[in-house]
């Protein structure tokens, strides 16, 4: 199996799905000859032509709207928002239109499409190339939300998202685009189901529920804690809507302790949903409060390295938080 980093895995998923199903098409700013600002669509226009890989005007609302129109006509568009921070001009199209098509037509219409966007920080992108706004989309009935953290998951879940009968917001942690390389399966063998979490590390002392770049950080934190005799069980949610409560609950049943770790602003982040749900479901198993480890309530991470560092969670901060839960 070929070794791939996350952005290559995304590109492979697009490539394979376009080859498999000619209804699949890609649109967005700079997705054509340039291949996207992160190269996620590199080579696709050369392979599939200017129709199926379409450079759009700089207008996110119309990107979402056009994707929707294509989908309503039976195509399977994968629209790229250049950065998820720039999906907000499309918010009305996504929330009021795309998410509600099936419901408002009582099932007569549907709108399967994928909106891909790089998310998160840590690459000196500053306030407008670093946000983690997944909570907005996770609050919208009718949408599915995926946020993978490995090449294997990115490929498998993007393929599933493209085949899914409903609209999927697919967020890619840009900090991980060129991090780890993994052997990634090809074709049908690569597809992974939406909605299933992965137990990334087994442990008995505390459960860490996380996703995206924070998975990497949590794995590093867990290695440190292991030296202190604290064994962390790490769950990567991978899909945020719907999310896999069962896998989390099972783990908490074993550990009695859980922290939810997320890169977004703490208040109102998706981790609040996870924490609230787990605190309710697992009340009887909990030996410590469900704790949240998240970014500060500051608009987004600043450009200055000193401030970016102050903003971001890192293995130290996460280890501290987990230790506190373990020792409660």
């Amino acid at each position, binding site marked *: 199996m070929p070794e791939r980093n996350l952005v290559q895995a995304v590109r492979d998923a697009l490539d394979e799905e376009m080859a498999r199903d000619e209804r699949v098409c890609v649109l967005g700013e700079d997705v054509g000859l340039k291949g996207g600002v992160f190269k996620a669509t590199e080579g696709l226009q050369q392979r599939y032509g200017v129709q199926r890989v379409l450079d759009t*005007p700089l207008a996110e609302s119309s990107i979402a709207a056009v994707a929707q129109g294509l989908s309503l006509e039976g195509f399977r568009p994968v629209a790229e928002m250049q950065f998820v921070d720039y999906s907000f001009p499309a918010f009305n199209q996504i929330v009021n239109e795309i998410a509600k098509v099936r419901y408002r037509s009582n099932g007569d219409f549907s709108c399967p499409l994928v909106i891909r966007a790089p998310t998160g920080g840590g690459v000196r992108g500053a306030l407008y190339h670093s946000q983690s706004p997944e909570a907005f989309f996770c609050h919208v009935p009718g949408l599915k939300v995926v946020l993978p953290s490995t090449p294997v998951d990115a490929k498998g879940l993007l393929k599933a998202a493209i085949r899914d009968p409903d609209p999927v917001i697919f967020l890619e942690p840009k900090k991980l685009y060129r991090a780890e390389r993994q052997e990634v399966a090809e074709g049908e063998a690569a597809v992974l189901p939406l909605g299933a979490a992965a137990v990334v590390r087994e442990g008995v002392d505390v459960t860490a529920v996380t996703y995206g770049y924070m998975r990497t950080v949590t794995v590093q934190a867990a290695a440190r804690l292991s030296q202190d005799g604290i064994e962390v069980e790490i769950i990567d949610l991978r899909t945020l809507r719907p999310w896999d409560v069962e896998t989390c609950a099972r783990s908490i049943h074993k550990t009695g302790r859980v922290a939810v770790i997320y890169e977004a602003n703490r208040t109102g982040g998706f981790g609040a949903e996870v924490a609230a749900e787990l605190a309710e479901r697992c009340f009887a198993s909990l030996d410590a409060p469900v704790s949240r480890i998240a970014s500060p309530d500051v608009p987004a991470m600043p450009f200055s390295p000193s401030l970016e560092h102050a903003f971001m969670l890192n293995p130290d901060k996460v280890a501290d938080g987990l230790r506190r839960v373990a020792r409660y």
Partner: protein
Amino acid sequence: MPRDDAPLTREQVFDAYRTVLRARALDDRRFVLNRAGKLAFIISPRGHEVAQVAAITALEPGRDRFCLYYRNFAAALACGFTPEELMLSAFARAADPSSGGRQTPGNFGSRRRGVVIGSSTVGPQIPKAAGIGLALKWKGEGALCYVSFGEGATSQGDFHEGLNFAAIHHCPVIFFCENNHWAISVPQALQVAGPGVAERAAAYGIPGVRVRGDDFFGVYDAVRDAASRARAGEGPTLIEAEVLRLQSHSTDDDQRTYRDATELAAEAARDPIPRMRDALIERGWLTTESDDAMREQVSREVERATEAAEAAPDPDPGSLSRHVYADA
């Protein structure tokens, strides 16, 4: 169905006139039901009917796509919705074909008729129609997408994004603006900078046409020309039909609180339906007798439709959560 080059037949005009009368009779009936407390909310097409029906008559329901807006009650009839169906929607009955009683009446949708389900939101259908148009262009079957909206909707960014996209890609789209000069209480002078809506077409290098909305043949011709261009791959057209809003914005509004009484009286005297009748009589296609007979017939139809719809069952409360996502 008219072919691009076929002249309008007397039958077609007759059908259209019947549709106009149906729309009016149904509307009258809805107001009675509203006053009786049986219907919650109505948006009246009064003053727009002739323009709406003329436009649809120039197109091909079943072949083309229609993105209608909430005032398109007469257009919906012309697209093939039956009086009973529209009454089912007014009563929010389970058998409402558009949404099974989920949306306010006026959000028309029917997959088999090519009427694309809309929402109550002003504007988003415009770039969506561009996307549908792009898909139709790719399919290459000569179908087009018709999208209608008020002049208020032209203020939305989505209007601009939709026209720009459709013009760049020569999408077969007819942008049909029903300019009644008021958006609820906001007059055109505070809404539309510059000479008018039709003139905005030039900004995108596409034809812009202004027609009198009470001139059945004028509207028909303008739309038919636009359709020929669209089907021939020559791209979109923007049509502005000048119409009158002979009713308040909706049953929640009272236009006498913000509009001049003499102006309202003058407009009331310019109802487009008598004008259409007179034009048909002048051509010798209609007599006052056949007109009366037709009205009689329509009124019986409306009676039956109302009774059937009123007697129809409400949606099953147990269906509330269906169609948020595809059935598993």
